[in-house]
């Protein structure tokens, strides 16, 4: 024991050290590529992300997204100049839809992020501690789940006042209980595993066990749920925008655009169609991606 080998071997190259990881990733990639719907989801989400990243610089009429008014070109149908037509202020709908991607992405990330940030720790603690702590957390969770989410969010926004930030806060507040449920169930299963007991027997403290052993093993369902929730959150925010509780009018938000366009149906169909289609494709994309991720991350559905 005293003859400690002081000469640590030269660290192997990156690809040697991570051979296992790399193989795993290649396997995931292989399985993912094999599924059409997963690839479709990935493509849609990819396009959405690119548009969100570079949108304001590529649109033909950037000033239209800030509330510019061109009374001469009101409600024009789709043409080569205005691909998606124009709205009642004469703004280019194509530009507004593209720039709206950024708002939607922001909404999706904030809501699912906040939801997971609140829900995951609560779920892990509830599952690991058990007893009274678990009862408290789970009853509180059920209290939130008992009220329909959107209705509760509506009430919260109404009391906070309309606006994009308040809308996101309200949705995050109704979003976390789902994560508590998911993570609690997973934690209950993982904490019975031998390696948790093994960590305890070498003297690990509870936070160490939660962080190093429980959380990594809960990650796959969390990732899957988050990717699916991105779509749902965007949809919910669009819903709030539709009833006028989201972003205030000049801001290019898809839900709000559909809301205004409602009174121009059906003659000026393009006004509501394109923002609606954007919502549809984004939500579809995230859902398909989530399904695909679940298929490769969930060992039960895996066909070796």
């Amino acid at each position, binding site marked *: 024991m005293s003859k400690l080998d*002081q000469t*640590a071997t030269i660290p*192997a190259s990156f690809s040697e050290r991570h051979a296992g990881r790399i193989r795993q990733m290649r396997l995931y990639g292989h399985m993912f590529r094999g599924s059409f719907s997963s690839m479709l989801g990935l493509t849609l989400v990819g396009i959405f992300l690119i548009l969100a990243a570079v949108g304001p610089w590529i649109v033909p009429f950037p000033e239209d997204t800030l509330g510019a008014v061109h009374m001469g070109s009101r409600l024009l149908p789709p043409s080569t100049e205005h691909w998606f037509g124009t709205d009642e202020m004469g703004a280019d709908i194509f530009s507004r839809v593209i720039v709206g991607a950024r708002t939607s992405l922001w909404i999706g990330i904030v809501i699912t992020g906040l939801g997971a940030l609140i829900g995951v720790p609560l779920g892990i603690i509830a599952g690991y501690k058990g007893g009274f702590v678990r009862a408290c957390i789970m009853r509180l969770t059920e209290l939130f789940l008992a009220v329909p989410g959107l209705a509760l969010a509506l009430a919260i926004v109404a009391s906070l006042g309309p606006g994009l930030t308040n809308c996101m806060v309200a949705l995050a507040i109704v979003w976390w209980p789902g994560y508590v449920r998911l993570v609690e169930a997973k934690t209950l299963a993982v904490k019975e595993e031998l390696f948790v*007991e093994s*960590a305890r027997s*070498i*003297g690990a403290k509870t936070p160490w066990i939660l962080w190093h052993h429980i959380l990594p093993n809960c990650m796959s369902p969390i990732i899957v749920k988050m990717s699916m929730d991105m779509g749902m959150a965007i949809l919910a925010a669009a819903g709030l925008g539709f009833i006028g509780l989201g972003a205030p009018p000049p801001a290019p938000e898809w839900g709000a655009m559909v809301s205004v366009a409602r009174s121009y149906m059906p003659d000026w169909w393009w006004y509501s169609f394109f923002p609606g289609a954007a919502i549809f494709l984004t939500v579809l994309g995230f859902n398909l991606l989530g399904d695909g991720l679940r298929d490769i991350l969930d060992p039960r559905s895996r066909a070796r």
Partner: protein
Amino acid sequence: MNSTLLDINAYSLGIGTFDGPIHVLKDINITVKRGETLGIVGESGSGKTVLVRSVMGIGPSNSRVQAGHITFDGQDITRMNDKGWAKIRGIRISMIFQDPMTYLNPLFSIGRQISDVIAAHERAAGQGISSKAMRRSRTQELLEQVGLPAPAQLFDQYPHQLSGGMRQRVLIAMALAGKPDLLIADEPTTALDVTVQAQVLDLIKSLVKKLNLTVIMISHDIGAIATVASKCAVMYKGEIVEQGDTAAVLSNPQHDYTRQLLAAVPDIEVTPARLLAKQAVQDVIPAPQKLLEAVNLRKVYKTQAGGEFAAVDNISLSVNVGEIFGVVGESGSGKSTLARMLLRLIEPTSGDIFFEGQDISRLRGEPLRQIRQHMQFVFQNPHSALNGRHTIGDAIGEPLRIQTTMSRRDIDVRTEALLDIVQLPKSFRYRYPHELSGGQKQRVCIARAIALNPRLLILDEPTSALDISVQAQVLNFLQQVRKELNLTYVFISHDLAVIRQICDRTIVMKRGKIVEQGDTEQIFLHPAEEYTRALIESGRVTSRAARLRA
């Protein structure tokens, strides 16, 4: 009478995986005659289960027959469709599996499950389904055939009300329901206790005689094969390396692998070398010093019915510095509960535990964490004792990161040194547990346990999840490490041969109580209690079968 029932001819099977096709079976040639019992021995991963499953037509989903064919009773069944299989599977060939619990539906009574099988066979045979009463009597007849008492009562019982051995008998009854020509048994005794193992093997043997069955039994336990099978085949890495009469193969093994396999079987009859060595130096042994002591340890669980159940009932023991202390007993005897209590992983209901004279049964928080440096646990199942998301390096370094203030670099150096001690290559640091074999994983677990230089290791059936050949290696290695690091072991096992080989003193447990305790040799040579005697006797059955012919 002596016609060929099953003929496997130059059969090769490949499984398509992401990494390219893997050849699981290579050029297999086996012939089984009617009324014969063939045993297939091999370690896990040698392809024996895949082989018998292909005979049943339930091979792995993306497998492909590369060459050869399987003929059953003159009919080629290599590439048969589902319709053809319906007339063979379960009726002419049936199978019993390793873990009886998972193959019985917990929601239906035993009788219902067997009658359903009978009905299914009748439907497949094209005759009308017989009446409920007739099926009932046939079921009871079957239950009686497999030696289960009071079949009329048993008919309405549910799987959870039966013991493991009884469940395995029920499965055998179910397999016999279609009056099969060929019975395939896939490790039928592995999940059972020693005493029950011997009974189930006897049952299979007697059924072969009574019903003129043809049996293919696979096992990694040579003893079990030797007890039952008249012919045997040894499989290694997808190939049959040797086959012939069991007696001939075991007494005169031709292939190196067979020889290794035979040498690895621990022998219950042999006086351990340890004792012979000890006798020579008997007078220099210093007075024993107590390392761990337990006084009146009890653990009581409340049952759902509101009653109380003592998993461990008033156990007192003391372990001396430097010895290997054995704990032996059947499953459910409270061995594991006891072990976990000694380490305070489970809170004892009452009683005291002393470690180096210090009462640790009331310690909490930081002092308890500190004491855990000195006593470590090695778990039964290395496959689940390692977190699949950590590399081996992380796993071994974890105790150091938790208990010491060593720098990341020092920990890396120490991790490599530990890998050296457990005889694994240093490059394993970057591997993940799923890339390692069972024996390698158990070595990693041991490395992890000795990382903090503990005084005491509690080993909870460290070898029972491993193949016999690997078991021998791990046992040798454990003894080696003990000498080098001056460790004390508490060794828990259900395998008496292993206990006799390595333990100095032993306690025998039954239903939470100590039945017998004392010097290991004393217990083996002159067991005082009926229970101990029965335990040793059943351990002998398989051990002797493997030896007698050697």
